[in-house]
């Protein structure tokens, strides 16, 4: 019962954030000095006033402001993000057609980054030795290195110096290796840093000592008891991780010439195709809110203390 109540509260809060995001997007559209007709046909085009009016009517720009707002929000709620100025397709169809490629890239990269972070955490938390210093330095490099440069380095060595992997194009799993590595390496540092920080603290708590005095080995304490604590901050930053993933995907897709959400976003930004830009922004807000709701529910799975309290 408590779970259902919390779920409803979460959903309502999420809906409020999305409504605010849609309103913000609407305000931005209104503040925009540029005229969609100009974006579509170019500044120096010879569009007759009648044609201009018809186009404005097509986009609903002739209605009173409150009607435009109501229409915009209700369309957004029903999943209609408008029509691209440039491509004459709905924003939703543009996003869905490119989404699969980005999801493949992002989920494999998360898997890679997460596995590396768990290994790094298990091996170095609560210790002060050379391995920890090496891994800490690697994390620092990972968070500080521009993702596109990681990609260019991988290309330089593994495609040009030793032609193991293809430079661009789709050649099955082979063309996924370098992009996934790029995004995974870029993500690893942040994840690993917060997880180890938490595990450091967990290992100093009395339960860790108790487990040791019961005769458990250091590795068993880490694996069976402390790792669970390290997973909590990893969950907390899951939504931020999604943001980092999306940003990283935009860059990675550009480096390796891959199709995906990043490519259409960059294209839309360059062409000032505002409906697509706002569509991607709203879509990312939707995913962000959804992830946060799932994370709140997952806390209960990872952390039994929360279940007991409810």
């Amino acid at each position, binding site marked *: 019962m408590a779970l259902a109540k919390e779920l409803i509260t979460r959903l309502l809060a999420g809906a*409020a*954030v999305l409504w*605010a*995001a849609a309103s*913000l997007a609407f305000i*931005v559209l209104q503040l925009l000095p540029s005229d969609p007709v100009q974006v579509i046909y170019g500044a120096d085009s010879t569009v007759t006033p009648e044609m201009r009016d018809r186009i404005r009517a097509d986009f609903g720009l002739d209605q009173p402001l409150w009607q435009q707002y109501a229409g915009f929000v209700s369309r957004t709620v029903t999943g209609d993000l408008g029509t691209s100025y440039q491509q004459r397709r709905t924003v939703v169809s543009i996003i869905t057609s490119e989404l699969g490629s980005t999801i493949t890239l992002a989920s494999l990269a998360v898997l890679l980054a997460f596995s590396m972070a768990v290994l790094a955490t298990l091996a170095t*938390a*609560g*210790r*002060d*030795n050379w391995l920890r210093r090496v891994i800490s330095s690697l994390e*620092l*490099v990972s*968070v*500080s*290195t*521009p*993702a*596109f*440069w990681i990609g*260019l*380095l991988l*290309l*330089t060595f593994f495609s*040009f*110096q030793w032609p193991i992997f293809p430079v661009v194009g789709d050649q099955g799993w082979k063309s996924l290796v370098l992009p996934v590595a790029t995004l995974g390496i870029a993500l690893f540092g942040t994840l690993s840093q917060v997880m180890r920080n938490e595990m*450091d603290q967990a*290992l*100093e708590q009395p339960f*860790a*000592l108790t487990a*040791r*005095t019961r005769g458990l080995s*250091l590795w068993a304490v880490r694996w069976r008891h402390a790792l669970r604590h390290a997973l909590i901050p990893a969950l907390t930053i899951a*939504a931020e991780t*999604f*943001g*980092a993933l*999306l*940003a990283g995907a*935009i*860059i990675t897709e*550009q*480096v390796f010439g891959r199709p995906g959400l990043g490519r259409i*976003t*960059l294209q*839309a*930004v*360059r062409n*000032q*195709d*505002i409906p697509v*830009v*706002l569509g*991607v*922004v709203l879509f*990312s*807000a939707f995913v*962000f*809110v959804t992830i946060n709701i799932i994370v709140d529910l997952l806390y209960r799975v990872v952390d039994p203390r929360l279940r007991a309290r409810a």
Partner: protein
Amino acid sequence: MTNLSIEMGGAGKATSRLRRGRMPLGVVLAGLILAFMAVCAVAPGFVAPYDPYAPDLLASLKPPSTAHIFGTDQLGRDIFSRVVHGASYSLYIGLCATALAVAAGILIGLSAGVAGGFIDLALMRVIDVLLAFPGLLMSMAVVAFLGTGVTNILIAIAIASIPGYARIVRAQVMVVRTSGYVEAARVLGQPPMRTLLRHILPNTVGPLIVLSTLGIGSAILQSAALSYLGLGPKAPTPEWGLMLSEGQGYLRRGWWVGIFPGVFATATIISTTVLGRYIKALTDGRA
């Protein structure tokens, strides 16, 4: 028992090493790197041996040598000179964007924290919504409206980092507001504006300055990324991200084209992060 506690609690050593007051080697190195970058930014002609814009098509894509220590690019320009000149763009954008974002963050966070009530609630909900968007996506959206160029990506990066600073300021105001000295000032009948400027502001800004040191690094990272995506300065500007995107097509014929601008960018970002963390650790220890 002692053996066990050593094995469990090794992480505490890092802080005790810090407390001894000796500056770690990494921090010294970071300071030296940043000093070098600052010289490059202020007086590039002093460091760079060649004109960063002068093409020499007869010497295009030459590997590193004594004449060109970082080699030459596709147009025969000296990569070292270009990389040196590039420092000014990154440092300029990093510093100005952070300063702008911090100033706006203080203004918004302070108003929200001091005003309280509905204004606070409304401002913080807007901040929450803005924090829902990845920074790069938000700055890209701003560029979509403003257009490309150095000034516009500077503004875009600043706008994207305002929400984070505003939230920190507001949280800090909440802590300071309930503290004894603010209470005392109020009881003594000081005007609210004076309390705000004399007590709340200074105690809020301190922690923020420390955090903004770390912010400069990520602003530089963002500016390099936006430039790489072609949203920043235009060719032939010697900006690091732009140099890498222009050089990408020539990686097959010359690895050095893709290496050195990235080395400079990464070294600058790592150094600001190392220095920022050191300052943060020092001030945390004092608090």
